[in-house]
């Protein structure tokens, strides 16, 4: 085996910097948690627009979905961080700056809201209209029906698909190092700059991401399966 091979699998340097790197990984988790919240909230709002009875609402929802689903997350992160403050600043006539963490959350949150909107929409449309009529016939108001009858079923139905999107979103958090959010990749680059040993550090980062995503996603799938499947015969 060549030296390069052994170098790339010798993770001692990675382990040596574990504290700095772990702090970086936590940043990935923070960015993930915040942008997932934004994506879910905005995605649900967009989905409700998409299934609205009146066309102007549906149209706004569709524009939202197509705009963000078709925007590369890399470009969006850069655009929100560098271009958006210039545009907003020009509008209000003041210099604006957005904190890198906030830019990352907005960019990823909105890009993924496009995907979540479609998942929510498919989930909502899969609910038989009879379930809603039965609730109406009992005198339930629309908001109550959404909260008690529709969403609990939608969540169960969309969970497998949503887990895949959460995985993509978590992977996408690795690009926030571009705008200097101190995540794992950012810390890895910093360590590489001092240690000059990119192979083991990149390998370590890859393995870490893989392990985190694999175990969390598998755990969520396993734990939610029984709960989800109660609704099916």
């Amino acid at each position, binding site marked *: 085996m060549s030296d390069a091979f052994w170098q790339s699998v010798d993770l001692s340097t990675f382990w040596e910097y574990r504290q700095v790197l772990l702090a970086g990984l936590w940043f990935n988790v923070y960015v993930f948690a915040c942008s997932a919240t934004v994506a879910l909230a905005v995605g649900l709002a967009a989905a409700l627009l998409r299934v609205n009875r009146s066309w102007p609402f549906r149209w706004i929802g569709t524009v939202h979905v197509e705009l963000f689903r078709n925007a590369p997350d890399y470009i969006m992160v850069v655009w929100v961080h560098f271009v958006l403050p210039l545009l907003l600043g020009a509008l209000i006539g003041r210099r604006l700056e957005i904190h890198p963490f906030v830019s990352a959350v907005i960019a990823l949150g909105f890009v993924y809201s496009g995907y979540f909107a479609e998942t929510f929409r498919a989930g909502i449309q899969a609910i038989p209209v009879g*379930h809603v009529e*039965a609730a109406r*016939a*009992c*005198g339930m*108001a629309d908001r109550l029906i959404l909260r008690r009858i529709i969403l609990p079923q939608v969540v169960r139905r969309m969970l497998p698909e949503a887990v895949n999107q959460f995985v993509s979103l978590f992977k996408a958090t690795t690009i926030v190092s571009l705008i200097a959010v101190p995540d794992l990749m950012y810390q890895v680059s910093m360590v590489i700059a001092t240690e000059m040993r990119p192979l083991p550090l990149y390998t370590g980062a890859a393995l870490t991401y893989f392990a985190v995503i694999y175990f969390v996603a598998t755990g969520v799938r396993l734990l939610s399966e029984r709960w989800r499947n109660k609704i099916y015969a």
Partner: protein
Amino acid sequence: MDVMPAIRVVDLRKNFGALEVLKGVSFDVHTGSVVSMIGASGSGKSTLLRCINFLETPSSGDIFIDGEPMGFRSDASGQRRLRPLSEVNLMRRELGMVFQQFNLWPHMTVLGNVIEAPIRVRGMSRKQAVALGEECLARVHLSEKAREYPARLSGGQQQRVAIARALAIQPKAMLFDEPTSSLDPELTDEVLSVMRELAGDGTTMIVVTHEMAFAREVSDRVLFLHNGLIEEEGPPEQVLGAPKSERCRQFLSKYLH
């Protein structure tokens, strides 16, 4: 003395676009009585039932539940206006509806389905609602299934849960929209026997049905609908036994032979 009917329908009309489904239907349902609606598919019976609790908005006409206008009311200038949804929802609690497809909420247990509206709509405490829910499940003979999920029940059991759910809102009348039409014949009887018991208890009921034997046995009145109009109405022995209208005779001949 004129007794206020539990449900009064006056000149009810409903269009879907150019299609006129109900062309002016009027009838009364007195408290404690059972009215069956029969007729071919497309005759407007389901639409009529759905108009009564405003799942469909009538194009014109009036519906009174215990004398109170459902859906519409007159404003100060005497103009007829659609009631706000919140008022329609209040009125809907007075009518329990049972659907052909059961429409149980699959993510809730049987008891959860039954106590949902008492808690969220009637504002009962959980404890009160559970007591009421258990009582309603006992009336449909499903007390032992309270903790099951609907997916684990047979069609007949699901429909009985749906009946318990409708009873739990403590309505003034029950509306049944072809409650046995999506059941296998051997499951039909368990649902009909529960409905027979309800009728025996003096529950006010409107039943859209194709079960002629049931209609004859349980109903106080039978309405035969044809093309959006009541073609014939009267006591079951008359409408089902000796119909005056030719169309009603033709319709019934398909069921009796």
